[in-house]
């Protein structure tokens, strides 16, 4: 029987055969019944089609069947022994961007279609952009109608290359390609022998195997209180349970928790379900939490950990997609905003730019957004929301805007952060209670038992170049996806293990050696050590690299290469100012040399998100 649920959002142009492909998947997995088939056979015959039009299976409303178009999000279901699938099928015409956004909001995977004869169209790019904006974790591009190009590999390769080049500009973490003919059934369920040059899996196999369990955020504990259960019966007189769906992290019995906005703390006494108590709760479970202390908690409050809180702010930056045909965005006008289980009056303070979904151009002069427009805005609410960046948590980073007069949902939004700077939790959280018996395990045994493999990422560069920002984001992304990672920050370590060291060349060398040793040990244990250290001397870094090579642990040297002027302008710690004022004499880049790496594994982009992706790419190589 099926064991997991996979949600798919499909999109494609009017004629690229999307409905036929879905019809084919339903047909081949026996999700279509004989009476449905007979009914569409009759309709096909009436219309004079040459063969039964499988698209009729999915086009549900009369207007669609008559005009041969799809007008809204439709849901389709099929299952294989491995998985149950839910398809949100959305039409591709330009005026229905909002439907694609709707389908993508809950999807694990986006399925895009192109016609092999037409290649990548404007619409394909738009759908890829929307999938990326909505952070759909996996994307598959089906090159359809291969039968009409004689199953020619060159056609497929060209489309694949063109799309890959475009996708590289977007936030797409997992991209797959399959050449298919939905009409003839090639590479949909069975491997096609007409395309022996294709070495990948057919579409269904890909859908069955794509790994989705790690797409959830299992690190940042978030529980928006939905409803307070008070039975008021003699049997349960003192029962006071906080019902809701886990939006992030893993809640365990005995955990210390904090409640926003009161910031009161308590411990989880137990986690209730109607089937009895459970030890732990994780997304998307619907449970009831009972706390040890009596705290005043109501719907809209957020339960988290004292050491890992969401951002609490009345103002934030977001990307929004405008949905309403009958109105346009009005800055300063009153809207109602729904975020998690909280409603709040809200205003859009400023439209920063409109994003052209075809060219990715940012129009800074845009004055409003209309239906299907996407733009970046700043929003303020009447009371603080408790949110995370959308890219870290889709549940606590998303919201809708509702017109207070018509009650219509006018826009959907994805939170970028509370200001221009990315907001990252102050304290990283790593897996708890992992201990090893050092002498009896080989590294292979250890890594394979833990299902991980260690490595060191070494970020070197001038003070203020952005090393720690990248390191923190990399660490967070890794840990969020279930991979043990730990950031070793030069400044932080100087408070402890390196507290007795100064800034002479000798002390700097010892500083680098110690950090290198700690990084190697942690990597040996299975973690990704993310080191953020100026480490100005090439020889010191090379010694660390050598120690890693001898131990057989991957070492990736990353040169965060911002020009001195830029670092000096940022000057986050005021060091350059002090150096220029003569208060300190040995600042790297000013009074002390920096030896850049000769062949670093990577010089990351200035854009944080791109940089993080590039760094993560090193681990996959």
């Amino acid at each position, binding site marked *: 029987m*099926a*064991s*997991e*649920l996979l949600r798919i959002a499909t999109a494609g142009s009017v004629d690229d055969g999307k409905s036929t492909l879905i019809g084919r998947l339903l047909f081949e997995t*026996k999700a279509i*019944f*004989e*009476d449905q088939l007979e009914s569409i056979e009759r309709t096909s015959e009436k219309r004079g089609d040459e063969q039964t039009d499988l698209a009729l299976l*999915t086009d*549900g*409303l009369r207007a669609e069947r008559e005009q041969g178009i799809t007008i809204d999000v*439709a*849901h*389709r*279901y099929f*299952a294989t022994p491995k*998985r*149950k699938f839910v398809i949100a099928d959305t039409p591709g015409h330009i005026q229905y961007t*909002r*439907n694609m*956004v*709707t389908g993508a909001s*809950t999807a694990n995977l986006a399925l895009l279609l192109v016609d092999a004869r037409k290649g990548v169209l404007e619409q394909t790019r738009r759908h890829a952009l929307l999938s990326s904006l909505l952070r759909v974790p996996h994307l598959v591009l089906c090159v359809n109608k291969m039968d009409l190009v004689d199953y020619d590999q060159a056609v497929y390769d060209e489309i694949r290359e063109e799309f890959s080049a475009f996708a590289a500009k977007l936030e797409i973490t997992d991209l797959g390609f399959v050449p298919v003919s939905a009409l003839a059934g090639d590479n949909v369920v069975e491997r096609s022998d007409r395309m022996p040059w294709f070495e990948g899996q057919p579409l269904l196999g890909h859908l069955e195997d794509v*790994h989705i*369990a*790690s797409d959830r955020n*299992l690190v940042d504990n978030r529980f928006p209180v*939905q*409803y307070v*259960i008070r*039975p008021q*019966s003699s049997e349960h007189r003192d*029962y006071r349970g906080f*019902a*809701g*769906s886990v939006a992030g992290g893993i809640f365990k019995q005995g955990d210390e928790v904090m409640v926003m906005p009161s910031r009161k703390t308590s411990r989880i006494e137990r986690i*209730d379900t*109607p*089937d009895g108590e459970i030890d732990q709760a994780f997304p*998307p*479970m*619907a449970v009831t939490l009972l706390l040890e202390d009596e705290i005043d908690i109501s*719907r809209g409050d957020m339960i988290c950990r004292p050491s890992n809180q969401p951002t609490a702010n009345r103002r934030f930056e977001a990307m929004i997609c405008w*949905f309403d045909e009958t109105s346009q965005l009005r800055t300063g006008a009153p809207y*109602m905003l*729904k975020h998690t289980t909280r409603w709040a009056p809200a205003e859009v303070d400023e439209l920063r730019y409109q994003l052209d979904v075809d060219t990715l151009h940012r129009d800074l002069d845009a004055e409003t957004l209309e239906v299907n427009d996407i733009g970046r805005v700043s929003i303020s609410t009447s009371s603080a929301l408790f949110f995370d960046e959308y890219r870290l948590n889709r*549940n606590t980073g*998303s919201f*809708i805007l*509702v017109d207070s007069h018509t*009650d*219509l*949902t006018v826009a959907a939004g994805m939170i970028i952060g509370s200001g221009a700077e990315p907001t990252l939790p102050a304290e990283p959280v790593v897996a708890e209670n992992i201990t090893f018996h050092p002498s009896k395990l080989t590294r292979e045994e250890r890594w394979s038992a833990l*299902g*991980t*493999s260690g490595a060191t990422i070494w970020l070197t560069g001038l003070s203020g170049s952005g090393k720690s920002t990248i390191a923190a984001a990399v660490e967070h992304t*890794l840990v969020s996806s*279930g*991979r043990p990672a730990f950031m070793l920050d030069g400044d932080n370590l100087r408070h402890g293990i390196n507290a007795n060291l100064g800034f002479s060349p000798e002390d700097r060398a010892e500083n680098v050696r110690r950090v290198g040793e700690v990084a190697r040990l942690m990597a040996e244990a299975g973690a990704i050590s993310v080191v953020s250290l100026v480490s100005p001397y090439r020889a010191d870094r090379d010694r660390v690299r050598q120690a890693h090579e001898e131990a057989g642990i991957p070492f990736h040297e990353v040169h965060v290469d911002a020009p001195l002027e830029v670092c000096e302008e940022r000057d986050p710690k005021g060091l350059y100012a002090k150096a220029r004022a003569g208060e300190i004499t040995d600042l790297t880049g000013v009074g002390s040399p920096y030896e850049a790496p000769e062949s670093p594994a990577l010089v990351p982009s200035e854009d944080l998100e791109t940089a993080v992706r590039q760094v*993560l790419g090193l681990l996959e190589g």
Partner: protein
Amino acid sequence: MEEATRARPAAVELTDLDTLEAESIHIVREVVAEFENPVMLFSGGKDSVLMLHLARKAFAPARVPFPILHVDTGHNFPEVIEFRDRTVAKHDLRLEVASVQELIDAGQIKVGHELESRNRHQTVALLEALKNGGYDAVFGGGRRDEEKARAKERVFSFRDSFGQWDPKNQRPELWRLYNGRHRKGEHIRVFPISDWTELDVWRYLAQERVDLPPIYFAHEREVVDHEGLLMAVNEFFPPPEGAEIMRVMVRYRTVGDATATGAVASEAVDFEAVIEETAVTRITERGATRGDDRFSEAAMEDRKKEGYF
């Protein structure tokens, strides 16, 4: 990131049924938290039994915080009415009944003849009951896999003050952020089990060992073959002249108006056997059992626009 995925213990993964259950409970709780006066439709059919079971789970150990509403066509299977009353007593529920017969007697519904299907008349009785009860949210057990028009309906489905559905003007539904805001007189139909298929329903009911009306399992019954449907012979369905009465093992896949709901030949006497049959069946449940859905491709769409559930 392939290694990372394997590091995660299997214990933090949910099965497809657990996921569906969690999503449905979330919806039910959201409605109760945001609406003043919800009500849940309950026919005694398996979908409404499932929905009620999920509602009980959503609020345990408290009782279900809203009444259930039975739209009674007067053409009932006695086993289903007996089941309904047993369920109400067992779980301390509040039951409201919207009677089609009463509206017929009062002259508010005109019927051609006593034994015609009353499925269509349920709409009148339902809208009347909603108005009288002042309900602002109505839970229905509709599933998107049942029928093509239902596949396009939202979980929160907005109805105007006439109870009508406008398929071209539905509110976008994103993430789990449901918008139930409405004005007085308008209401929202809520379909918490939208994403369940017939097979999911059976597998879950079996997993949870939920009590069902006995007619869902194979039993011996007198039936006639009527326009391709196996119709039970009883007071609502006197056998047409010349029809051959057979005594065979049957079960029901859906429970509706007794004049229009057919049985299927079956030997499945327990959950496991029903699941096995459901997994290999090649006919939709409505196509196999409902006379009223077979008339045209758009039969359901038309009825939904009028306010049917």
